[in-house]
């Protein structure tokens, strides 16, 4: 019981990331009908927003200490970040909580990148075959990835979580499973809550605002909405921006769990495509549900008991693909896919 509960929790953080990226993918796909292979790059750029902000905040002034010396006799170098010099204690907290500041930083950045991407490139591909859309975004993904590699190098750049969120909490004790039965890192819990808020926000936005209503109407029948005198293209562009923000934020908050590197985007994207296919293409709820489901499944597959049961083969790397195969053979439209979407 404890073990199962723990594995479900373990699956939640990865599942949250899958769900957020898949949600972004589906938003773009449902509105604009474009499969965005550069979507993983957006996730990566979001993660690197954190890196940039952290670097900016911790720009240091290096001085030489007047009193202390190293064992070699040279003066000890004293590193003082400018923010600490200017704001003192507040500055230190600012650096410590840079991940949260990055959210504020990433929202406008991702919005601009998303809209620029749609207006600058993808707009010209609506009338082209799907293969062309795939290929051009694929090329874009390579370019973005290589730019990040050129600027930040090929090695992962670790980002610490804020001091207050380092460590684990004993969730087992909270829900009455006995002390130390289920211990879970705090940041992963934060990530899950964050993802839940974002997902709820997106759904609420689409459900309860006029803007969202128009967008949903446009998803159902773009032409008619256009004939009613609504500039649906502009709203869809905004939705592309929103999708970029959602994906970027998924990247920002994921940095303490996985150190950002230049190929993280593509690693996640391939899995998220599978998530979208399993959930049913074009279904937002399906994408989110499949994201969590596959994340949890993956964590179950990595249990030692499962490994022992399968004669020592660890299948956590491939379980998602296997599930995708089974789903496609039994329910070709995915869990929540509707008829008529990408059927040809």
């Amino acid at each position: 019981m404890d073990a199962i509960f723990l594995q479900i929790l373990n699956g939640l953080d990865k599942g949250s990331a899958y769900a957020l990226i898949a949600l972004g993918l589906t938003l773009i796909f449902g509105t604009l009908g474009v499969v965005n292979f550069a979507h993983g790059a957006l996730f990566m750029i979001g993660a690197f927003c954190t890196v940039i902000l952290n670097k900016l905040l911790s720009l240091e002034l290096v001085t030489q200490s007047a009193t202390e010396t190293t064992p070699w006799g040279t003066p000890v170098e004293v590193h003082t970040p400018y923010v600490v010099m200017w704001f003192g204690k507040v500055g230190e907290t600012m650096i410590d909580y840079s991940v949260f500041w990055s959210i504020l930083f990433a929202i406008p950045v991702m919005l601009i990148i998303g809209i620029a991407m749609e207006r600058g490139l993808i707009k010209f591909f609506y009338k082209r075959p799907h293969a062309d859309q795939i290929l051009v975004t694929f090329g874009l993904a390579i370019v973005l990835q290589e730019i990040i590699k050129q600027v930040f190098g090929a090695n992962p750049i670790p980002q610490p979580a804020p001091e207050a969120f380092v460590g684990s909490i004993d969730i087992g004790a909270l829900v009455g499973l006995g002390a130390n039965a289920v211990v879970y890192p705090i940041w992963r819990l934060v990530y899950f809550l964050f993802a839940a808020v974002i997902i709820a926000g997106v759904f609420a936005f689409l459900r309860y605002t006029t803007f969202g209503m128009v967008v949903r109407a446009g998803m159902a029948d773009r032409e008619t909405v256009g004939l009613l005198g609504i500039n649906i293209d502009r709203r869809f562009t905004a939705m592309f921006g929103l999708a970029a923000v959602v994906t970027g934020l998924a990247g920002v908050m994921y940095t303490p769990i996985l150190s950002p590197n230049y190929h993280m985007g593509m690693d996640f994207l391939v899995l998220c495509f599978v998530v979208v296919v399993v959930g049913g293409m074009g279904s937002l709820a399906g994408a989110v549900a499949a994201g969590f489901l596959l994340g949890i499944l993956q964590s179950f597959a990595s249990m030692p008991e499962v490994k022992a049961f399968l004669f020592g083969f660890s299948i956590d790397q491939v379980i998602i693909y296997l599930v995708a195969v089974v789903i496609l053979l039994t329910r070709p439209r995915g869990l929540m896919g509707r008829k008529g979407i990408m059927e040809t």
Partner: protein
Amino acid sequence: MLKTTDNKDRLMMIAFTVAVLAAPVILAPFGAGYPDLMQRFAIYGIFAIGFNLLFGLTGYLSFGHAAFLGVGSYAAVWMLKLLSVNVIPAIIFAVVISGLFALLIGYVSLRRSGIYFSILTLAFAQMSYNLAYSVLTPITNGETGLQMDLDDPRILDAATAPGQLPPPSLFGLEMGDTHYLSFMGLDLQLNVGFYVCAAILILMFYISLRIFRSPFGMLLRAIKSNQTRLNYTGVHTRPYALVVFVISGMYAGLAGALLVCMDPLAGPERMQWTASGEVVLMTIMGGAGTLIGPVLGACIIKYFENIFSRVNDAVVSNWFSGLPDSLGDFFSAIVSPFLGSGWQMSLGLIFMLVIIFLPGGLMEGVTRLIGWLGRLFRSRNNDEDAETTSAKESSPDPHSSRPASPKES
């Protein structure tokens, strides 16, 4: 009508054969006439021809073709390790294994078409990559890559050369053997490995030509133009698509085996998504659906890869050494990210530019250029010719004798 296409094909086949066999002469002035690069031209040419059979004919865009190349490579290395250093069994085994692998993946992936198919193939390729990298380490030797070893059993020929590791060979002809020759002031390098690859390339080109011209090829093209209508006329398209998918996978496996025969090493990075993307780019750059285009595209991409990735910072700064220092630094700062290890970035950019401006590839570019020149030429003479050519252009494929059915709405 049929006769003329036959003659044209024969002419093309002869021209292609001559061009491939004379490659050391043709490529030497470009600085590409050395064995390693020419082998890669031929091998990736085979890979691209195979990919084109699937994508060019049926329009199914597979994003996981590198997986078959990788599987072929591993199979070939195992054959070299277990049986003998002769390349024939290695190639045959690799083709069979990659064909089976393609059958498995194709059976599942072909249940969906369009974007779903691309995503599924990409996912399977990524899964194979993950498997080769981690779980299947006993078979693939993980990150280090699989290579031949002194302790290998090599049932057939271990006894002939004890205590040493002979390079792959074809009945004693070593793949690495190169004959140097001076011809019309050019230093030619005639390499055994290249000619093995070239012979197979020519054979594979011929097979692809036959498939293009066969009724089977017609049916595949019909899948591309309108699958729904085919289904309504009572043709079950999936088996045909599966057959061509398997053929295409076998081509890729063959290319992988040849890579191993030239250099007996197989690593998981051969299966990565960028490798799959590269063959898509080769095919599209040359012209998907054309016969000669993919080979051309493969040569161009590999040639530029070779040139670009060799240039390093020192060379770049040497180029701009004539300029004032600050200006030279400025230019080399702009140029250097695209060269050397930044080749991938150039690849991505070329990819985007080709898709945006020349989706039909170079072959379409050539056709457009010829058409444009022809129109330019004709408009000076008289206008009557224009009508006949436009009629000729719009006439359907010579094989279809029926009048073109009305377009669907």
